């Protein structure tokens, strides 16, 4: 029972990780870029959300309504101001630029919000739980998982069915050929990053409701997103989703074995996948 409980908690935790991983999978799939400040953006949005809640008395839903459009704009600006200039075959410029951005963002947040951990008051929702067959399931984690499934489904549908999705897949397959059909790669890239960071707007609200956030936490979020994407297999949003589940379950089971072993267990499963199935569980080849 204890292990089944760990499994359930792991899946719920995976719902949180999926919200970080989707954007990373999308950006890498289209531009072959890893945004090192991915996690710091989650923290930045969380802290902005917490400040909005405390200054104007916003509830979590209102914060989300404000934060997601803000995240979209932030992503679009990030692409226009920085990433469009460093996208290319050489991975170094984009890594260095986003690495520098990460360093600057982390320390900027430290100055504005200090090193303290904060969280978003959820009006009681964070402590509600339902009991199913002897297992307590938190209501909030279930909502997080439901959102993760919804976002994955919507992203997948958008990629497969919409005009923008087709342009995005075309640019991912061969950016020069895409421009030969009239696609403006920079515009597609800006939209992709806007969506990727936009999803982080949801993640930020849930992260700050579920636990606490502090300016230095971004690195860990980046690593979890990365591990989920690699475990699941690159190039598919459902791969990133399943990878998040595997990571969440690994951490939850590791945590049951020894509280100091939780995060490490996730890393070890990641390394195991890398050793045995480098293309990821759902990758081709």
């Amino acid at each position, binding site marked *: 029972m204890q292990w089944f409980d760990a499994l359930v908690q792991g899946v719920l935790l995976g719902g949180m990780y999926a919200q970080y991983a989707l954007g990373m999978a999308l950006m890498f799939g289209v531009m072959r870029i890893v945004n090192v400040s991915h996690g710091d953006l989650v923290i930045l949005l969380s802290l902005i959300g917490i400040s909005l809640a405390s200054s104007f008395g916003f509830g979590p839903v209102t914060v989300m309504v404000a934060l997601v459009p803000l995240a979209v704009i932030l992503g679009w600006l990030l692409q226009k101001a920085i990433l469009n200039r460093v996208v290319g075959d050489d991975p170094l410029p984009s890594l260095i630029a986003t690495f520098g951005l990460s360093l600057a963002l982390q320390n900027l947040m430290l100055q504005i919000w200090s090193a303290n951990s904060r969280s978003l008051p959820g009006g009681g929702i964070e402590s509600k739980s339902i009991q199913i067959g002897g297992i307590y399931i938190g209501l909030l984690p279930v909502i997080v998982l439901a959102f993760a499934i919804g976002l994955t489904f919507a992203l997948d549908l958008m990629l497969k069915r919409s005009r923008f999705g087709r342009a995005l897949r075309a640019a991912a397959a061969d950016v020069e050929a895409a421009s030969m059909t009239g696609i403006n790669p920079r515009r597609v890239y800006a939209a992709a990053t806007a969506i990727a960071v936009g999803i982080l707007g949801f993640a930020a609200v849930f992260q700050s409701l579920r636990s606490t956030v502090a300016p230095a936490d971004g690195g860990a979020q980046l690593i979890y997103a*990365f591990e989920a994407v690699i475990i699941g297999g690159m190039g598919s949003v459902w791969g990133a989703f399943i990878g998040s589940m595997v990571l969440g379950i690994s951490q939850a089971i590791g945590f049951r074995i020894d509280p100091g072993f939780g995060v490490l267990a996730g890393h070890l499963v990641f390394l195991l996948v890398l050793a045995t199935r480098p293309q990821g569980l759902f990758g081709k080849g």
Partner: protein
Amino acid sequence: MTSIPISPASAAPAVTVRRQTTSGRIALTLFAIAILALALMPWWAKTGTIRMVLELCCYIAVAQMWNMLAGYAGLVSVGQQAFMGAAGYAMFVLAQTFGVNPFLAIALSLVVPAVLAVPCYFLLHRLDGPYFAIGTWVVAEVFRLVSTNLGWVNAGAGMSLTVMKDYSAFQRNIAMSLLCAVMILLTIGGSYWFLRSRYGLALIAMRDNPVAAASQGVNVKRLRFMIYVAAAVGCGLAGSVYFMAQLRINPASAFDPMWSNLAIFIVMVGGIASIEGVLIGTAIYFVADRWFGAYGASYFVVLGVMTVLVALYARTGIWGLVSRRWDAPWFPIRRHLILKTEEKP
């Protein structure tokens, strides 16, 4: 094909290869003097100065190792602190737990990063470009978490190097000075020697075009692997020396990502793929750290923004801008062909 006049084997060669320049000879002399000055520090510097110089030497060593990885081998790592911490811990365990002479322990501790680098590389090289970088970070995190959970390195609390009390302050100063000299000789001198060897030519060919280099018989994969292991050992040496001077080690300091921040800043601002750039970058970082370090977070915001700006607008860093104007390398690695025909009577 452009034709190159080649004289018959019997005659004196019409072409000579010039590999050293005036600026290079001056720099090499200065380098030799600097190594000597480092070794002789106890006779001209106070303990405080020696500790400061030691820190500076660690920065240079770590930055140069990162430069070899990112600038020449095309391997961008943000997790070299993994090997610094691993070697540091190995040295502490050998000296403190097993009573090995601390200076011998430093040499022995280098086996650990060398051995660990092999499986790490075999796992990480499967990751594509930017993902490789994040992978190196995960490895550093794994090392940190393992040391946090490991009882015989005193877990999260860390270890102290109390055995150093057996040595007098002067003896310790001599040791630190010699270690500085050896570290710079191995990382800077070693890199220079490596870049001027036939491997160096291959490396530059590889940096310019890996596909073309592979087709020219350069074993790109093996060279990358060799550099990765060598960089792990170089960072390990810096880690062992640094933590010996600190006399304390714990998981948070041993595997501090700050070392990656520092290496990236130094190399990118100074100028990637050049030894000169590392020295310039270190000087800038060191001075900035002394002057503005007190401003804490806002100082790091500036460093971060500067790194972004370099990546966007000046990818070759300061040395790149300098060498575009003046062709006077301190560490020349190019080969110049000089036609000798006009000198003949």
